[in-house]
């Protein structure tokens, strides 16, 4: 139950539970493995607004998120992902807003 959470374990969980076709997970804890940001591409997001998508992810990763200190996500449908990649020249990835150069600062969850 108290299995350690890694980029890989989160990626696997999302692929399994949300049928995510593409997942990028990035450790933003600076090494302690307690904070992650992610880009999640799943067909299950189609027709859902941002809040519903995040709720879906929060539910899928309920136990994981409860164990870590910070969690950030960007949720896209496969179509949105392709469009953004085309528009930005492949430059799409997990959100880093609120971090300092990709690392979390301040008080934990």
């Amino acid at each position, binding site marked *: 139950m108290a299995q350690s959470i890694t980029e890989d374990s989160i990626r696997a969980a999302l692929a399994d539970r949300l049928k995510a076709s593409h997942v990028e997970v990035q450790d933003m804890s600076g090494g302690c493995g307690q904070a992650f940001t992610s880009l999640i591409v799943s067909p299950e997001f189609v027709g859902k607004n*941002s809040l519903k998508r*995040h*709720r879906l992810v929060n539910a899928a990763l309920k136990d994981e998120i409860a164990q870590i200190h910070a969690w950030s996500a960007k949720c896209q449908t496969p179509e949105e992902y392709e469009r953004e990649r085309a528009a930005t020249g492949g430059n799409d990835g997990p959100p880093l*807003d609120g971090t300092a150069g990709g690392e979390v600062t301040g008080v934990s*969850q």
Partner: protein
Amino acid sequence: MFSRTILSRQLLRPAFAAPAARTTFLTSIQARFLSDQTRQAIDKAVSSAPVVLFMKGTPETPQCGFSRASIQVLGMQGVDPAKFAAFNVLEDNELRQGIKEYSDWPTIPQLYIDKEFVGGCDIIVSMHQSGELAKLLEEKKVLAVESEGVAEEEAAKKE
């Protein structure tokens, strides 16, 4: 005379800070589940202003990058300080845990507009970037009256 000056200085807080000073609104009973009492206290907090942010730290001194980013967005959007309240979850553990269950949302900050849950930092930032947040704040009439259009509208109403 001198002491009165000091007192009045203490009372004069920046407008944005005033709502955040409402700190002692929950007792520190360590409840595992959301009690009726906590729920009612959070209900009250959520309806204390049209725009309510539950955050770590205060608007002047956020204690977490995500709370800082969220407060910066609300500032950039021009939210009227008189229509805004911030609650520092670090000052009350019951609030800190309770708000997660209340909103069914695992992280802080959390934004409410007109008692409705909007989202956390990721959603606030993406809505800011897409223009959705500006639209929502304008619809809810919670922006500081600065733009000419609004000022004219107000003036027209008074005439």
